[in-house]
């Protein structure tokens, strides 16, 4: 054959070859992202290992079948996935992926579509979490209402909680006030909510003994609720006349300004008992050390793990973690609330069982059980 013609034919085929090949191998697929709010589409394609000459991929999108393809993003060679986040739920989209080679040649994949992003009504990836919530809540609710049947529950002694009575008694004997610090957490911290429940019990006892209770607050919402709690406690104790709303007041949300002010109160008001219950950060020790030096009886309770050592070192008694949440039930002696403590114990047994089963399965080489807890 004439060499010239052969050369022309070869030159003609070189740029076409990759086009044909990539069009075949790119194998573009588009799917609606599962478990989302309908705000994205996932594009996937096969990385072409035969062509290490790929420079990059370019993704095009259109909202109609023909034409109007606009570039929406790029992907590096070796990457086989692109998430299109700029889509509207319920609309159809068409895609093309363009492979760009080092020598400047470009090749388009066939167009795919329409891919319609949809919102899901349930995030299936959260199924194990939902199961856990249902099981734990079911157990707790069962034991709460089971307790109603009148079956007696034994609850072990918790020294920190018995100390609360002792501290209030001491303040009453000395004719001095009680200081209640509910931490620096806001209403969204569960420790703060637990603290408010404890406050309700303590303020009732204080109201019965007519011992003044001072509550400096660091969160305005918490302060408002605590005022109501204390007012209710006084009514329950049959002493609405002794309720002093000015004893519950806001100082500031600023952590250390709050700590400075409470330190000042500890030194100047000289309360006979101080309770620190709730969520705390670094100010914990600034408060508890000053209280310790002033010789006050101090009972702390928190689930802030980093602050527990400081409370343990500075306070007479410390409620750790779950004990904080158990306190209100324990102090109230209400069977419904005590029932929940039994439920929590069963919860812990389930957790221990899960750990043991998980360890055995993991040792046997089964990963699926561990993956449930992701």
């Amino acid at each position, binding site marked *: 054959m004439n060499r010239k013609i052969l050369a022309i034919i070869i030159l003609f085929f070189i740029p076409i070859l990759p086009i044909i090949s990539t069009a075949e191998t790119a194998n573009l697929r588009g799917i609606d992202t599962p478990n989302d709010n309908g705000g994205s589409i996932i594009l996937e394609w096969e990385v072409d290992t035969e062509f290490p000459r790929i420079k990059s991929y370019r993704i095009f999108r259109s909202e109609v079948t023909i034409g109007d393809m606009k570039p929406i993003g790029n992907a590096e060679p070796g990457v086989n996935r692109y998430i299109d986040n700029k889509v509207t739920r319920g609309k159809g989209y068409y895609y093309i992926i363009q492979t760009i080679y080092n020598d400047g040649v470009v090749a388009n994949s066939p167009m795919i579509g329409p891919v319609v992003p949809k919102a899901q009504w349930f995030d299936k990836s*959260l199924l194990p979490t939902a199961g856990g919530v249902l099981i734990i809540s079911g157990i707790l609710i069962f034991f709460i209402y089971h307790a109603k049947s009148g079956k007696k529950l034994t609850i072990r002694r918790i020294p920190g909680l018995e100390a609360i009575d002792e501290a209030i008694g001491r303040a009453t004997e000395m004719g001095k006030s009680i200081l209640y610090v509910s931490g620096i957490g806001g209403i969204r911290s569960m420790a703060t909510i637990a603290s408010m429940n404890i406050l309700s019990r303590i303020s009732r006892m204080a109201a019965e003994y007519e011992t003044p209770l001072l509550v400096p607050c660091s969160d305005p919402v918490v302060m408002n609720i605590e005022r109501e709690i204390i007012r209710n406690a006084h009514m329950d104790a049959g002493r609405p006349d002794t309720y002093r709303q000015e004893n519950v007041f806001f100082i500031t949300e600023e952590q250390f300004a709050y700590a400075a002010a409470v330190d*000042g109160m500890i030194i100047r008001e000289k309360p006979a008992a101080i309770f620190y219950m709730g969520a705390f950060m670094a100010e914990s020790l600034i408060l508890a050390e000053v209280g310790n030096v002033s010789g006050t009886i101090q009972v702390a309770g928190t689930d802030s793990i980093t602050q527990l050592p400081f409370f343990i070192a500075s306070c007479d008694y410390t409620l750790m973690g779950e004990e904080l949440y158990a306190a209100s039930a324990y102090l109230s002696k209400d069977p419904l609330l005590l029932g929940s403590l039994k439920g929590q114990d069963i919860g812990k047994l389930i957790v221990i069982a899960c750990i043991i089963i998980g360890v055995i399965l*993991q040792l046997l080489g089964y990963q699926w059980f561990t993956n449930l*807890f992701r």
Partner: protein
Amino acid sequence: MFNAIGIWVAIGLTICVYSFLYKDNPLFKFAEHLFVGISAGYLLAIAYHTNFLPYIYYPLKSALTEGKYREFSVLIPSLMGLMLFSRFVPRYNWMVRWPFAFLMGYSAGVKIPVIMQADIYRQIQGTIQPFGDKSSLWAITNAVMIMLGVICTLIYFFFSRERKGLSGGLSEAGIIFLMIGFGASFGYTVMARISLLIGRVDFLLQNIPFINSIVSNGR
């Protein structure tokens, strides 16, 4: 000038706060009250710009002037906010409970799944995952120790059983783990706090001219 005054103010206040270590005194009282006043004022200003204006004032303004009637929805929470003031009117003070019920219900519900995932599931997973790595004896021993530690600590928190027999022994072991854990976290923070103190002392040394001249002459 403005800056020079600022540095002197900062030096003075730093000394006022440290004077508390000796005992409560007028200098500390001054610093404490100033701190409270200023931080409350700061809070008010920030709340005005980041909460009041964008979430109450502007929506209402656009509802009234631009006819965006949907924005009137801010009236519902505003009304709930106003209900907080009903406490001051004895006849209507029951109204204060509505916003409280809303806030408490909302906080209680939003936390349950988050806690389930982060504080229970992740911790279980973290405890069993290391058993997959059977390459070294040390790794497995450590994993066993952590697992026993977690179980004993959990048993320590049992409420419906007296601490007797096996559960008593395990909960004793739980206390040992707890105390070592607390000690470790105590020790871990010591250096960070000392470096804060060094930072403050350094600030004083750098900025008090008299001390600064001695320090720099000595260098």
